[in-house]
């Protein structure tokens, strides 16, 4: 397929895939009705193919499903069975589809080398599983870096009974990031030049103008070889941020009738972008997270990391358009859509706000400032005593001396935006936990990295032949503590399970992905109820590609002796 765009449109950041047939029906602007068009039923066929999108004379390589980007919406019903036949029509590479957040038998999970061998060119693999849950999910490739070039799509599962979330109309809002640079090129440039895409570094001109850090702080951070502007690895300098495949200029529009309760099913399908989401003029009532209903919380803005989903109710009562803003966390660009009573309307787009600067707290130094003494604690950047089990490999740039539970804090960059921001600590499960046992043991996993070598790993060792898997006993209740020793947030995803975030709520919320703040720590309780081998990784695609990945084993398998 070919599309043509003038340079100005391109420079404004409009990708323009939206104008033509690369978009599936559900993602097109102005779709009406309660349910977007979807693939459903017990037999579904998907074909993974390769397409070129030519934009302003530039060719972009996309991997698509059934010819669309994002892929088709799959809509299922809790309690049904489904057989999804996936055919690989790519010429020379394997593919796979992972059903993100779904409780499936491990061999249907779609991770090549862990769950199954992958799908070779020309082959068809039939995923066959019972649908055991309801909510907002998504699916994406787990092969190579196909997720970055288009292989992602939403999945909605309607509850078997009544939906605990009442609404009159819904829109699926898939956020993503697109680059004309091949993802392997993105990765290589980060390896060669780690700050490559950051066009918001501190400058001498900024120092003279009194911006950013003081000279004293700049010198102190320089001594540590730490860049406080390193918020995102890949930025708006090469990314166009998309809403349902639409660039900001294309302006995807979702319709509403005044007074309706509109359910927005936000899915962050970006490869590398954490989004700050808001709709100026509308309060966002968060009703479900990662597919699971939570006690409603009303906020003005929330942050969502790649792989997370948030269901939000808005209730516009005025006959006017509202701008849906999803700002990249480093403020280098935004995805934009519109909610309006009629097509063709738009509202002002707020300017991108100033990018945040990382602080000593983001380095795991607690609330301290550089140079303060803390008796009895080694506050140096890389002390073995602060993480005795983590080998100090070249991949470990820092060990957080005082990692803190930051779930009650607004996410990075949203500390002082002047309105209500969602925190993880506000989330409470709508339902009682199904497993009330206290955890039988606790394990700690360090999220480690070296920004200067673009190395990312768990516990200092990238995934590889010598990496030991994380072992769980089937049905045991375990507390997992994730300690972020790096200065970047990492959305950590466990396949095949939900875990309960230990966030101070009596009803701990269920999640499949948790974004661990820089220098922060997060605990979750897990019932290892799903036997098999499961991927466990950072959902920033290039962090995973760099080695922040491991396998979780849950034993015994069915039919195996305990």
């Amino acid at each position, binding site marked *: 397929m070919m599309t043509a765009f003038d340079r100005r449109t391109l420079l404004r950041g409009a990708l323009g895939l939206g104008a033509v047939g690369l978009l599936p029906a559900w993602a097109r602007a102005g779709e009406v009705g309660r349910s977007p068009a979807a693939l459903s039923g017990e037999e579904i066929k998907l074909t993974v193919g390769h397409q070129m999108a030519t934009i302003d004379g530039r060719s972009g390589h996309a991997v698509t499903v059934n010819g669309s980007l994002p892929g088709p919406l799959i809509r299922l019903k809790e309690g049904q069975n489904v057989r999804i036949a996936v055919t690989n029509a790519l010429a020379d590479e394997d593919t796979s589809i992972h059903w993100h957040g779904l409780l499936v038998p*491990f*061999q249907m999970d779609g991770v090549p080398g*862990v769950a199954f061998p992958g799908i070779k060119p020309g082959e068809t693999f039939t995923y066959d599983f019972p649908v055991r849950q309801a909510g907002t999910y998504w699916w994406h490739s787990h092969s190579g870096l196909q997720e970055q070039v288009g292989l992602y799509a939403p999945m909605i599962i309607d509850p078997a009974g009544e939906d605990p979330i009442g609404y009159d109309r819904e829109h699926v809002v898939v956020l993503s990031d697109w680059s004309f640079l091949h993802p392997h090129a993105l*990765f290589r440039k980060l390896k060669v030049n780690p700050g490559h895409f950051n066009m918001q570094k501190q400058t001498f001109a900024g120092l003279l103008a009194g911006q950013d850090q003081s000279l004293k702080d700049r010198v102190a951070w320089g001594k540590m070889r730490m860049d406080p502007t390193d918020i995102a690895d890949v930025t708006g300098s090469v990314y166009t941020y998309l809403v349902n495949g639409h660039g900001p200029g294309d302006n995807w529009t979702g319709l509403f009738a005044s007074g309706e309760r509109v359910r927005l099913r936000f899915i962050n399908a970006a490869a590398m972008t954490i989004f700050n989401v808001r709709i100026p003029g509308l309060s966002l009532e968060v009703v479900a997270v990662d597919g699971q209903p939570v006690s409603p919380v009303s906020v003005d803005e929330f942050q969502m990391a790649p792989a997370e989903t948030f269901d939000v109710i808005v209730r516009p009562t005025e006959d006017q358009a509202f701008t849906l803003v999803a700002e990249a966390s480093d403020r280098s660009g935004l995805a934009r859509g519109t909610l309006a009573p009629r097509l063709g309307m738009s509202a002002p787009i707020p300017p991108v706000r100033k990018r945040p600067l990382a602080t000593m707290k983001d380095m795991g130094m607690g609330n301290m400032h550089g140079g303060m003494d803390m008796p009895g604690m080694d506050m140096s950047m890389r002390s073995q005593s602060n993480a005795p089990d983590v080998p100090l490999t*070249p991949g470990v740039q820092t060990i957080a001396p005082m990692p803190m539970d930051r779930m009650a804090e607004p996410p990075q960059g949203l500390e002082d935006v002047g309105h209500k921001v969602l925190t993880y600590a506000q989330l409470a499960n709508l339902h009682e936990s199904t497993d009330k*046992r206290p955890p039988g043991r606790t394990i700690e996993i360090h999220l480690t990295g070296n920004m200067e*070598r673009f190395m990312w790993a768990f516990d200092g060792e990238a995934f*590889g032949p010598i990496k030991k898997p994380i072992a769980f006993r089937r049905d045991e209740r375990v507390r997992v503590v994730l300690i972020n020793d790096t200065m970047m947030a990492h959305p950590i995803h466990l396949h095949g399970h939900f875990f309960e975030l230990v966030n101070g709520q009596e009803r701990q919320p269920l999640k499949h992905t948790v974004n661990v703040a820089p220098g922060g720590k997060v605990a979750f309780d897990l019932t290892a109820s*799903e036997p098999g081998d499961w991927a466990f990784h950072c959902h920033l695609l290039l962090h995973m*590609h760099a080695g922040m990945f491991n396998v979780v084993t849950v034993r015994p398998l069915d039919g195996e002796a305990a």
Partner: protein
Amino acid sequence: MILDLQHEQHQAADPHAGHDMGSMKPAAEAAPPPVVTPRAADRLFDPKAMAAARAQLMVEHGGASVWTVRADQLEYRARKGADAQAFEGEAWWGTDAGKWVVKARGERIDGEGWEKGEAELLKAWPIGPYFDLQAGVRYDLAPPKLSKGGRSYAALGFEGLAPYWFEVQGAAYLSDRGDVSARAEASYDLRLTQKLILQPRVEADLAEAGAATLEGGLRLRYEITREFAPYVGVVRERAFGPAVVAGERAGSTAVVIGVRAWR
């Protein structure tokens, strides 16, 4: 290769099938289970196909090879007397565990030909988060003025990022005639704006016989893209020891114009 999974799945549908949840006692701090080999899928799929997929999984999750080629300096040096052209760059490829590095540099003087020209082939290993150890060989295509004929060396050095963002490298060389020499360089990128960068740089070369050269440069480059940055600058060179005694110019100053480029 793909087996009939119908039976397996439906069995797995109920995660608690066959387990009496009530009888499980929460232990205060239970022992972790033994670590098993993550090979559950081998029971259901062709183990050979799984082994191939696992090998690919390793490559795609931490095992990737990376390469780059770069010219740090590619410049014209205008100065009193004969003008010159100079080049300095390197290429590397490999993984986080180890890389191969090729370094090359040369200077050509109008009317005199190659003043120096050399290449190094090194193996590099990471030592700590910021530095690589490098060891290998160096060959001088155009040998220094004081020596005769081509020359080869064993090289042992380091390259990395020092505190305060100084890029540093250094090496010691042992020639095929038993001479020892050494070289060290440091540079700093002062970011005036996002794209305009002022780079001071110093280099010292020391030879066993007491000969030494010191070079200081100041280059102002504009990054049209990160990968392509033309620059202007000034370079001051000064020789010490036998070279000076031999009647050579003790020092020279050049105005330079060039480009820094990499891929």
